[in-house]
């Protein structure tokens, strides 16, 4: 098992910079999720680790070894592709066995290969399908064959590129769990690419949020959720997303307690912000707003019932806000003007020009 580190790694395709000066340490046995919107460079970063894409600048290491110029076959990694990339003309057994047969390093004897295929197939419940071709399997089964092919070689690092995106919602939830169990059992380093923040939040040891080829923030899921490093992360992580509004910090002692003035009211600040900026962007998560408070005033546009809770969609100045409300509380009427209470301790402040977090 092994760590992976990006040291100021850049990847350019002609004029496009797919990965821009990425520095990231993936620890040994960590489940690292690279999270970001489509086109942000996640796949490219993963493919550089695999050796399917060259590194334009910087240094890439697997363990202690610099791998910039190491052939993909010699990196001791496994990759699960989004399309699964199974060999359609081979049986499931042959597909799983393939890395053991193809290796140009010490090739295990036939008996050992058979035993390892058996073992991988058992881990992923594939034993009954070993003699079928991939074309005769369901999407979920094919996905498991791809995983079995990845684990059979016992690599240092597992790379996965949106492996759940071709599964239906129910299977995705189930497979998420299975992947985490697999990770615990293998005690291996997983690097997992997705654009789905739910996958990232539920599986990751740490999340690396990427936008436009640049790393935005790295940290455990809860830490990233609780203290997003900038406006992008704040808006990207969390569903429904964080509510934002522009405002001014009001410091004049005559005006009463410290607060942020906005177009829809004032948000109290429990402690002075660690900045002398005047203009800020205030962010509040939907669960930190309370209907019936008196800090802000908004108009109810819609009420979405989810059974266990309710999302109240409001017009807040030019923006749409979402307020989370427990199902047992009384629902507001559509069109009604309501007051919102804000817990100042859960307020996020950002610099509108640099978009970085202030407090």
């Amino acid at each position, binding site marked *: 098992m092994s760590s992976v580190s990006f040291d100021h790694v850049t990847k350019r395709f002609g004029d496009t910079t797919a990965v821009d000066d990425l520095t990231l340490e993936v620890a040994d046995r960590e489940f690292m999720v690279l999270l970001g919107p489509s086109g942000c460079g996640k796949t490219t970063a993963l493919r550089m680790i695999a050796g399917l894409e060259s590194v334009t600048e910087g240094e890439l290491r697997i363990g202690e070894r610099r791998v910039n110029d190491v052939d993909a*076959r010699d990196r001791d990694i496994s990759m699960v592709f989004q399309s699964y*990339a*199974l060999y359609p003309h081979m049986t499931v057994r042959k597909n799983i066995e393939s890395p053991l047969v193809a290796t140009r390093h010490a090739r295990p004897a036939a008996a050992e290969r058979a035993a390892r295929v058996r073992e991988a197939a058992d881990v992923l419940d594939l034993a009954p399908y070993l003699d079928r071709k991939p074309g005769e399997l369901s999407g979920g089964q094919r996905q498991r064959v791809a995983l079995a092919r990845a684990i059979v070689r016992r690599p240092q690092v597992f790379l996965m590129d949106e492996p759940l995106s071709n599964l239906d919602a129910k299977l995705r939830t189930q497979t998420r769990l299975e992947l985490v169990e697999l990770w615990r059992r293998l005690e291996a380093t997983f690097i997992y690419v997705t654009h789905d923040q739910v996958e990232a939040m539920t599986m990751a040891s740490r999340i690396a949020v990427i936008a436009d080829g640049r790393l935005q923030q790295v940290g455990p899921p809860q830490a990233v959720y609780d203290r997003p490093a900038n406006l992008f992360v704040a808006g990207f992580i969390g569903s429904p997303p964080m509510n934002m509004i522009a405002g001014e910090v009001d410091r004049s002692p005559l005006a009463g307690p410290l607060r942020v003035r906005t177009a829809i009211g004032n948000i109290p600040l429990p402690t002075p912000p660690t900045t002398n900026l005047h203009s800020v962007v205030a962010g509040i998560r939907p669960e930190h707003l309370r209907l019936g408070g008196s800090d802000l005033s908004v108009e109810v546009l819609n009420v979405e019932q989810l059974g266990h809770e309710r999302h109240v969609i409001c017009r807040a100045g030019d923006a749409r806000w979402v307020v989370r409300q427990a199902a047992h509380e009384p629902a507001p009427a559509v069109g009604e003007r309501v007051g919102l209470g804000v817990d100042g301790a859960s307020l996020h402040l950002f610099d509108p020009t640099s978009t970085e977090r202030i407090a």
Partner: protein
Amino acid sequence: MGKRRNVRQWALAYALLLPSLVVFAVFAYLPLYRLVHFSLYQQSSRLGGGERYVGFGAVWDVLSGERFLQGTWITIKFLIFTVPAGIALGVLLAMAAHRRLKGIKIFQTIFSSTVASSVAVSSVVFLTLVNEQIGLLRNVSWLSLKSPNSALFAAALSSVWQNLGLTFVIVLAALQTVPEELLEAAHLDGYGAVRRFFRVVVPLISPALFFLAIVLVVYGFQAYAQIELITGGGPLRSTETLLYRITKLQKNTDLQVGASMSLGLFGLTFLVALVQFRLLERRVTYGN
């Protein structure tokens, strides 16, 4: 009443079938019937001199005779020269084009263009290339049209070139259906470029390769114009394929021999078709 409707339906069915039945009768069944007839009856040397039944024994005499066997052997050699080389070259070119090698556009155009040019044109071009006075390839001994050892090879080479456009286009299309991620997966599994090609690419494009093998074999059986134009069957009849021999048998007295040999050729082609169906049946299915 049910019966009447039945009759009307049958009548309609036959009426609708009639045009194609006529076409088949005129262009397929009738010629086949005539062929069998000519092979069983010896025509008189005089025009309108009648015919004499000679029977299947005579057909067998022709098919086991030197003329037929020699022609078959030459045809098989022609196939050996044209089919594997034709497919291999087509695959090589298509791989190069598929990987977008530099300057490949030019080759792509040149080779695809043979799809649209006639056998006659490419044969004449080839003849110019090996022309004794001015040909670029006039000193290449293994292409000499003067020697019985090389003339068939020269004619075959022209055929390979003629067919290259087709092979190229078909293989290129097949290559484009092989997913890039599959080749990358094979690379990560540890397969080098060569094994990747034989273990992954070839199985996936094998239906196209089978198809080409069959088509090229049939083309080989049918090769006439390039032989007529390039070697004229010579030297020393060394390039007289079956079909070429048959076309030379046009005198009244030769008709029985020609017809018998045609039946033999028909049988050979039929065999190839059978093999084709067996192979295509065993073909792997690549459904999703």
